[in-house]
C-alpha cells in the first residue's frame, strides 16, 4: 500500500503476517485502524504483507497476525519454524509492537495440540500452550484490562493456558476467554499482545489501537505524544458492542 507523505516527519512500518491466508473474521480491520489512525495524525505508513517463504523485513514497527482456517494454519506453522519465527521474536525483544488474534495468537505460543494429527509447533514468543477443546466459545466478549475496557467477538474451540512467563491481557467480564476456566483473556509481553478478540478489535477500541501505535513509534523515535482524534463513531461502536455483549451472553 502506498502512502501520502508524512507531515510530521514520522513514519510507521506495518507488517501484516500472511495477510491473505490468515484473514477469516474481518481481522483486516485491525490493519485498517492502525493505518488510518496514523495517517490522520500525519504519520506516513507503509504496510507490507509477509507471505509464505518471504522474510521478515528489518524495520518493522508493528506486526499484525490474524486467524486462518486449519489448512492454512498448518502451512503457516511450518513457514514460521526457524529463521522467520526467530526474526519476529528478535523484533519484539527490540521493542516492536505486535497484535495477534486467534489462530495467529495460538501460533505465537509454544505449540497447538489438535484432537488428532500432529502437534503444530509455535514460535514460543508467548509462554503459553493451546489445545483443541470440546466446546466452541462463540459470542461477544468484554475484557477489563490495564489498557482499558476492550470489546470484541470470540469464536474458538482452542483452549489456551498461560505459563508463568507471560501476563494475561485482561480478565473477561463477559464471555469465555482463553480457556473458559481461569477468567483470563489474551496474553501480553511488553508491547506484544495476543488474544481471541475479533470484531474487528482495534476500530472499536481506539485507545488500545493508539497504545499499539505509540508503542511501535517509540522504538524508532522514543516517546511520542499522539494528538487526540475525534473518536465519536469509534466510541459509539464500542458502547453498542458492550451493550449487545451484556444482552446476548
Amino acid at each position, binding site marked *: 500500500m502506498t502512502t501520502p507523505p508524512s507531515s510530521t516527519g514520522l513514519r510507521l512500518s506495518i507488517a501484516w503476517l500472511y495477510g491473505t*491466508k490468515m484473514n477469516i473474521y474481518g481481522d483486516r480491520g485491525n490493519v485498517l485502524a492502525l493505518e488510518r489512525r496514523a495517517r490522520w495524525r500525519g504519520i506516513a505508513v507503509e504496510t507490507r504483507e509477509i507471505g509464505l517463504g518471504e522474510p521478515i523485513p528489518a524495520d518493522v514497527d508493528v506486526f499484525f497476525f490474524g486467524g486462518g482456517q486449519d489448512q492454512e494454519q498448518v502451512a503457516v506453522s511450518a513457514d514460521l519454524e526457524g529463521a522467520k519465527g526467530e526474526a519476529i521474536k528478535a523484533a519484539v525483544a527490540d521493542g516492536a509492537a505486535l497484535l495477534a488474534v486467534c489462530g495467529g495468537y495460538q501460533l505465537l505460543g509454544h505449540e497447538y495440540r489438535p484432537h488428532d494429527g500432529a502437534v503444530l509447533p509455535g514460535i514460543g514468543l508467548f509462554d503459553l500452550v493451546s489445545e483443541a477443546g470440546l466446546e466452541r466459545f462463540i459470542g461477544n466478549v468484554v475484557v477489563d484490562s490495564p489498557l482499558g475496557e476492550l470489546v470484541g467477538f470470540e469464536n474458538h474451540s482452542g483452549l489456551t493456558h498461560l505459563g508463568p512467563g507471560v501476563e494475561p491481557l485482561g480478565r473477561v467480564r463477559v464471555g469465555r476467554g482463553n480457556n473458559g476456566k481461569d477468567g483470563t483473556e489474551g496474553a501480553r509481553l511488553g508491547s506484544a499482545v495476543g488474544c481471541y478478540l475479533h470484531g474487528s478489535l482495534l*476500530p472499536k477500541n481506539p485507545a488500545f489501537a493508539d497504545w499499539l501505535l505509540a508503542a511501535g513509534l517509540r522504538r524508532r523515535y522514543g516517546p511520542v505524544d499522539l494528538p487526540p482524534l475525534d473518536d465519536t*463513531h469509534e466510541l459509539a461502536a464500542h458502547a*453498542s458492542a458492550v451493550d449487545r455483549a451484556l444482552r446476548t451472553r
Partner: protein
Amino acid sequence: MRRNGAPDPLGRPSALPDPRLLAALASAKLAGAAIRRLGRGGGTAAPGLVADRLDPALLTKIARRLERGAVVVAGTNGKTTVSRMLADILEADGLRVAHNRSGSNLVRGVAAALAERATLGGDPRADVAVIEADEAAFPAIVRRISPRLVLLNNLFRDQLDRYGELDTIAKAWRAALLTLPADTVVVVNVDDPGLAEVTRDLPVRRLAFGLDEPDPRFHLAALPHAADAATCRRCGHDLDYAPLYSAHLGAWRCPNCGAARPPLAVLGTDVHLEGVEALRMTVERRTPPASDDPGGDSPFERDEAGPGRAAATEGDPPPGWSAGSGTGARPPLLLNAAVPGLYNAYNVIAAVAAAGSLGVPDSTIARALAAFRAPFGRIERVAFRDRTLVLALVKNPVGFNETLRMLTLASGALAVPTLIAINDLAADGRDVSWLWDVDFELLADGTAPLSTTGLRGPDMANRLKYAGVPPDRLRPLPADLRSALEAFVETVPPGAVGYVLPTYTAMLGLRRALADLGAVETFWKQ
C-alpha cells in the same frame, strides 16, 4: 420412476398404508393448521419437527414417490433465487412442483413443506420436488432424499459463528455426494475452485457450469478482501485467474501443479446489466470433451452410462440436449431476466443448466425466466412518501460486495442516498466482524449521504468512516428501524430513489415499519 422402484424398507407393497407415516403426516398437518389459525406466520418448522419425531423416514418416503425425483439446491448465495427459478421453469413445463418456497431450508422445514402438500396416504401430490438446502443441513437432506439432481452454486464464508469453517462444510458435502447413485447429476459452478474440488472424480455425472465473459467491466483486478484464500485445493499454491469475476470465482488455474477450472459444459456470456432492474445474457451449452484431459477433470467424468443415455426420466426422452447425453450442444439461448447484478447471471446459468438437464425445452426456460420475480428481500421496490425505495437484502461479505458493485455500476460512484441496517440477532449472525471484509471503500468517492441503523448501526457507521467516507456524508441514525426510516427518507429528494440495505431481521423490521407507515410495494410484488 427410478426412485419409485426402490423397495420399501419394511418389505410392504407401497400401496398399503404406512401407519407411522400416516400419523406423522396427520400431526404435521394439524400443527400447520393450528399455527395458521393462530396467525403465526413463518412457523413452518414446527410441523416438520412433529412429523420428524413421529416418522424420521417421512422425507425419504415421500421423496421416493415423486415421479420425476427431487432436486436439491445448495450454496452460500443465490440458493433461494436459483431454486425458485428452477421451480418456476418446471411449473412452466407443466409439472407439479413441491418446493420449500418459504425458505425453511433445514431438514424439518423441508419435511414440513413436503408434508403439507402430501396426502395422508403419503402421495406427494407433485411430480418433482425442488428443495433449497441450508449449507449445514445439505448432507442430511441429500442422504434422506437421494435427489436425482444436485445443484451446487457457490461456497463462500458466511456466518462463521454458525457454520464453522469452509473446509468443514466442503468435506461434509463431498461425503454426502459420495453416497449418491451413479446416475445422479451434479450441476456445479466450477468457477468456484472449492466446489470443483468437492465434486472432483465423484462416481456421479458432473455438469460443470461457469462464466465466460470477455467484457472487462466484469473482471476484477485482484481478489477482494472477502474472498476466501484462493489457494490450490491440491497443492496449496496461490491460484491465478484469467479472468476473476467475483470473490474467488473465475477461470482459475494453479501455476504450480497445473490443476485448472474444468471445461465448462454450460456457460454464460455476453452479460448486459440493466441497472438494478434486470439483465440480459446468453447461455451456451457445449458438448463436453472426453474425460481424459490432463487435469483429470471433465464435466462428465465417470459417465459410465455412455453416450445416448439421457439424464431425464426414461421413457420420456427430453426434446433435445440433456446432461450426460454427450450428444451435442443446443443453439445459444438468449435470456432476459428481471434480476440484477453479475451474481444473478450465475443464478441464471445454474437454473438453465439444471432445467436443461431435466429435459425442459429452451423456449419454456426462456419464457419462465422472463416472467421470474426475485424472492423476498433480494430486490424490491417500495413507494414511500413520494420516494421510491429499492430494498436489497445483505447477509455476507460476498453478497454485500456484489450488491455494492451493482449499485455503483448502476449509478456511478454512489449518487443515491443509502440506508444500511445491521442487526446481530441469531438469524443475522451474532458476529459483525464480516463488515470489515466488505469493500465499502467503493462508496468513499460518492456524493450521497450514507445513513446507518440497526442494533449494530454504530459498528456500520464506524466501518464507513474507516472505508474513507467523509464525516459530512455519514448519518448515524437511531437503532430503532422505524424512526431511522423516517429520518432517512428526509435525505432522499422527493421523487427520487433511495437504497436500503438491511440484514435479514432488519429487513423484516423495515418491512413492518413500511407497512405501518403506509408504504406500497410496487411492481416487484411476488
